[in-house]
């Protein structure tokens, strides 16, 4: 039951082979037995989940509902959920219960899904290993001494271990794709503006994008049906109509033009990961795709550009956490300044404080042009690289990360090394295009994700490409040892 796809479960629910309450109870029980090893959830919302399951059963009883009705899912703890603790992985929001609901979670709820709880994450989505959570690191289900990736590490680990059928994540510089890759699941970062950011706690507003994480591309498509689309509450939400993400998922791939950027296969890429990716590309060739080498010349500049733009926006976005209206306030402030300084220093972890300071510096008088403006100019060059490449090919493929999941604690002392891990994912956010991570094999028993990047609003195409691959491979169906038999 814990390995079933959304379509299968939906069929079983519809046929009353199983009720949503039974399904939900089973997942809740599994979370309580297994999650102590993973720490993938910050909050498990048992009561609410059972309430929602009951409501779903009532709908199903009447033959109503969507393919998500009654399906137990989890939400990254960055989406505001009305009446349910929303921490963003931070001590700052240790006691924050939003009186409002994010558009993404609200739409998924409208579709009838059941919320099991809120998943762990790097604090304020800042991190690539999930070690930056106030609520403790998350472990990788494939190797409990390895990181699950980040920042949506809790969602990825929960899905891999069968602690949720599917989950939401957010991706600012790779935060859906990299943990999906490390945990052997499927994740999609949609086009910027495709999924509403309303109620999503902002890290970097011009880069943040919510998206689905699940076992398969098809399951991601089911989630996208609910999540995607225009939202008048978000000025950056696109008015372009969203597609039916399932309609063309079975379209054949004959003639598909795949570009392999040579910059994605250079120094720094683990040789075995490279081989795994090339094997996946060969699989596509067997399905009739045409492969050609392309170039994204400014790839290397995506790291410095990102590490100026994201912290700059974050430094401003995180100013609202001031201990006045919500969140942590220090004890006995001696005056207003003291309240600000200590509440923020106590409430934010080190990585968050560091990025706030980097951003504050980059925006400050005399540095703006050299940092922020320069980074925005490079951002355009990076976008143009993708636009040019996608004029020649339908999709771009490459690795998601240079290696498989690394050991917990192995990079915490060298932050720059950690930032370099994001080399293959950051540019996608800077350009705003959609991209996926799809399980493509294993290196030393650890999953490797294939990254598939596409043109603006080509989510349906990406899901089709990934689904066809998954029809011919079973990497996405593998289960980690710790999740077997339980």
């Amino acid at each position, binding site marked *: 039951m814990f390995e079933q796809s959304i379509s299968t479960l939906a069929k079983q629910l519809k046929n009353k082979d199983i009720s949503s309450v039974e399904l939900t109870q089973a997942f809740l029980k599994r979370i309580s037995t297994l999650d102590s090893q993973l720490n993938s959830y910050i909050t498990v919302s048992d009561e609410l989940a059972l309430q929602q399951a009951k409501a779903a059963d009532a709908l199903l009883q009447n033959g109503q509902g969507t393919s998500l009705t009654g399906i137990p899912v989890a939400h990254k703890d960055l989406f505001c959920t009305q009446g349910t603790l929303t921490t963003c992985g931070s001590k700052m929001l240790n006691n924050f219960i939003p*009186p409002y609901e994010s558009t993404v979670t609200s739409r998924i709820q409208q579709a009838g899904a059941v919320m099991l709880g809120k998943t762990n994450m790097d604090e304020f989505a800042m991190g690539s290993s999930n070690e930056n959570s106030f609520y403790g690191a998350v472990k990788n289900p494939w190797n409990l001494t390895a990181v699950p990736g980040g920042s949506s590490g809790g969602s990825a680990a929960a899905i891999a271990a069968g602690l949720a059928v599917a989950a939401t994540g957010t991706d600012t510089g790779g935060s859906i794709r990299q943990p999906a890759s490390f945990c052997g699941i499927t994740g999609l970062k949609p086009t*910027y503006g495709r999924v509403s950011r309303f109620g999503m706690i902002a890290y970097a507003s*011009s880069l943040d994008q919510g998206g689905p994480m699940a076992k398969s591309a098809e399951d991601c498509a089911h989630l996208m049906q609910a999540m995607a689309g225009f939202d008048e509450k978000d000025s950056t939400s696109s008015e372009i109509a969203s597609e039916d993400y399932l309609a063309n998922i079975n379209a054949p791939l004959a003639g598909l033009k795949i570009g392999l950027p040579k910059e994605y296969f250079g120094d720094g890429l683990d040789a075995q990961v490279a081989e795994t990716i090339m094997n996946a590309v060969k699989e596509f060739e067997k399905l009739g795709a045409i492969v050609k080498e392309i170039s994204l010349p400014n790839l290397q500049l995506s790291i*410095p550009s990102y590490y100026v733009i994201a912290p700059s926006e974050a430094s401003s976005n995180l100013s609202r956490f001031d201990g006045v209206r919500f969140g942590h306030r220090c004890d006995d402030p001696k005056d207003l300044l003291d309240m600000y300084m200590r509440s923020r220093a106590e409430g934010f972890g080190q990585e968050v404080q560091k990025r706030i300071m980097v951003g504050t510096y980059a925006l400050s008088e005399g540095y703006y042009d050299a940092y922020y403006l*320069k980074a925005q100019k490079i*951002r*355009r060059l990076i976008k143009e690289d993708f636009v040019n490449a996608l004029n020649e090919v339908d999709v771009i493929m490459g690795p998601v990360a240079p290696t498989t999941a690394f050991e917990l604690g192995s990079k915490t002392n060298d932050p720059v090394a950690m930032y370099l891990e994001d080399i293959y994912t950051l540019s996608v956010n800077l350009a705003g*295009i959609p991209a996926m991570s799809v399980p493509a094999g294993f290196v030393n028993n650890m999953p490797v994700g294939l990254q598939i990047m596409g043109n603006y609003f080509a989510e349906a195409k990406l899901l089709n490409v990934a689904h066809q691959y998954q029809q011919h491979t079973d990497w996405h169906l593998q289960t980690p040892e710790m999740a077997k038999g339980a």
Partner: protein
Amino acid sequence: MSINKQDVQKIAHLARLALTEEDADQYQNSLSSVLSLVEQMQSIDTDGVEPLSNPLEMTQRLRDDVVTEDNQRDAFLANAPQSEAGLFLVPKVID
């Protein structure tokens, strides 16, 4: 590119983050290494390139001027660290 401790304290003050001496030392190192990473940007000539702040380069949508929200004060105040008489309370503000 490296920055000194005084810079670190100045930035921390702008960002309203209380740093101990020890913190400041540590951030001096980590900020310096991030800033050197960021220095790589100077290797490329971007003269004449328009900065890009929104990836889709869309334009602002306009909202009709109608009141759509009801008073939800109590729900919001429930999250306030300190409140009284419908107000958020903070240590005395001196103008």
